């Protein structure tokens, strides 16, 4: 299968310092829970890395360390950008703000001038296909549309690194697949690096350039798979034998990690 460049970054990936570089990261919470142990992971520019693992294996903790919400208790976690987008499991929209003002929020918190943040928000709303819904309140939106608004909000940061904490877990399958495709388009167009957490193996394989499989608690990395399919992904790739084979391998690794 022909490899096309995964994202519009012309320089070769290997020569750059990685955006995310975790070396031997462990996380032990004050209550004694060991969430992560000996995790090595790198995310380079142009990569979309998805982490799959059983519930409670510390997948989300990885993102929380990368974003700075938590500090690793052992090892080194280096993130060499401060333009980080973070998409939570729930859309975390502010119920009293309409879509436009929700999308403006982060720029507002960063004290950008009103005109600038309004334009940024409008562009981001366009990108996620919510044009025409600017004046809608969150309670008037479906789950998928809320997630789009949440994506748009992070896009206003113009992120170099995008962290996704199971953002589509609560959506129905049709919506989820559509958002997967749109996320890939954004990834190709905007050129950010992605780190994505999910339970779904097929979502992981479909979205990413690299899939990392984690074991149950304490979370360690069981195996890493490169995904060879070209970006942007053809939705029908889901029905090919190669895709099914890779999904099978990842699922296998997942099961082994869970038992071991």
């Amino acid at each position: 299968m022909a490899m096309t460049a995964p994202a519009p970054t012309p320089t070769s990936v290997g020569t750059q310092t990685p955006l995310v570089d975790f070396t031997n990261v462990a996380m032990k919470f004050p209550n004694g829970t060991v969430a992560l142990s000996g995790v090595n992971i790198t995310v380079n520019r142009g990569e979309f890395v998805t982490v799959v693992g059983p519930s409670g294996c510390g997948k989300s903790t990885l993102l929380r360390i990368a974003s700075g919400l938590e500090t690793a208790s052992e090892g080194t976690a280096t993130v060499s950008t401060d333009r980080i987008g973070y998409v939570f499991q729930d859309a975390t929209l502010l119920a009293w703000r309409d879509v436009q003002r929700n999308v403006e929020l982060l720029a507002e918190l960063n004290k950008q001038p009103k005109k600038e943040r309004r334009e940024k928000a409008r562009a981001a709303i366009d990108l996620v296909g919510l044009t025409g819904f600017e004046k809608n309140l969150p309670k008037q939106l479906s789950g998928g549309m809320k997630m789009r608004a949440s994506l748009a909000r992070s896009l206003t940061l113009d992120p170099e690194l995008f962290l996704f904490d199971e953002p589509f877990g609560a959506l129905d399958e049709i919506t989820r697949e559509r958002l997967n495709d749109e996320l890939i388009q954004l990834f190709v167009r905007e050129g950010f690096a992605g780190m994505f957490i999910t339970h779904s193996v097929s979502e992981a394989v479909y979205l990413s350039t690299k899939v990392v499989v984690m074991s149950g608690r304490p979370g360690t990395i069981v195996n890493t798979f490169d995904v060879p399919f070209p970006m942007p992904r053809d939705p029908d790739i889901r029905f090919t034998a190669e895709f099914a084979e890779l999904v099978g391998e990842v699922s296998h690794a997942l099961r082994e990690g869970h038992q071991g």
Partner: protein
Amino acid sequence: MSATEATTVDSTELAHNVDVDPPHGSAVSAVDMTVSREAVRTPAERIRRGVRAALPPLAVFVVIVIIWYGANAILAPTQKFLVPTIDQVIIQGFGGPSGSQILIAVLRTTGVAITGLAIAAVLGIGWATAMSLARWVQRSTYPYAVILQCIPILALVPLIGVWFGYEFNARVVVCVMIALFPMVANTLFGLQSVERSQHELFQLQKASKWTVLTKLMYPAALPSIFLGLRTSAGLAVVGAIVGDFFFQRGQPGVGTLLQTYARLLSYPQLFAAIIASALLGVAMFFIFGLIAKIAVGKWYDPVN
């Protein structure tokens, strides 16, 4: 009640209509349709709905009036004065000199209640804010909010009189003490109802505590704060009337009048004063409900 249910149903339908999440064109039209259907139900239908909602309580009112007149009719002539008829209450109670007396007294009591409520709101919101910002403040002071609520107010009345005099100030203090706890408890609940992920959203942008408070916590707490205000408004009226009973120096409030009329056996006037007090309580309850609806009704969905 039925009106709020109806709007709730509509908003879920609206969300449901766009749930399929198709490319924007069709989604827009789905929303437009629902919105316009909502808009269609305006003047005529709204009035019809209003009438339909008002009918059952009106029927009950008629029954009450019948029972009232019946009671008066059954009583022996020498006892009839105990239950004056509605026309007597209206003509002798609300009409004549006692009418303006009652009106002025009710206004005075309202002044006491609103002053007390305002002080309770400021203190309550401030206290709850401090508790929500610092865990140790909550741990060390919240028990006293509960204790304050548990002290029978009448036990404090003599002391309040000694400390604050037997006029306006003392009445206000009673209102504050009785209205404070719902303000504290509801505001605290509202401030703490913000989800952790929303706090983290702000934390990731390195927002200051002040920004988190003004852009996240207070707006999120507004529905609870208004619920507290509404509860406390009713209690403040009770407090003001209790204050009138015990602190009778200075200008009389409606509580003072109630006692005076009872002592003078002026029952039509007594009934009129009771009804006026009740109306004051109801008015406070409705006004704060209305303010809440204007302030947060648009975005706040009580279902979620």
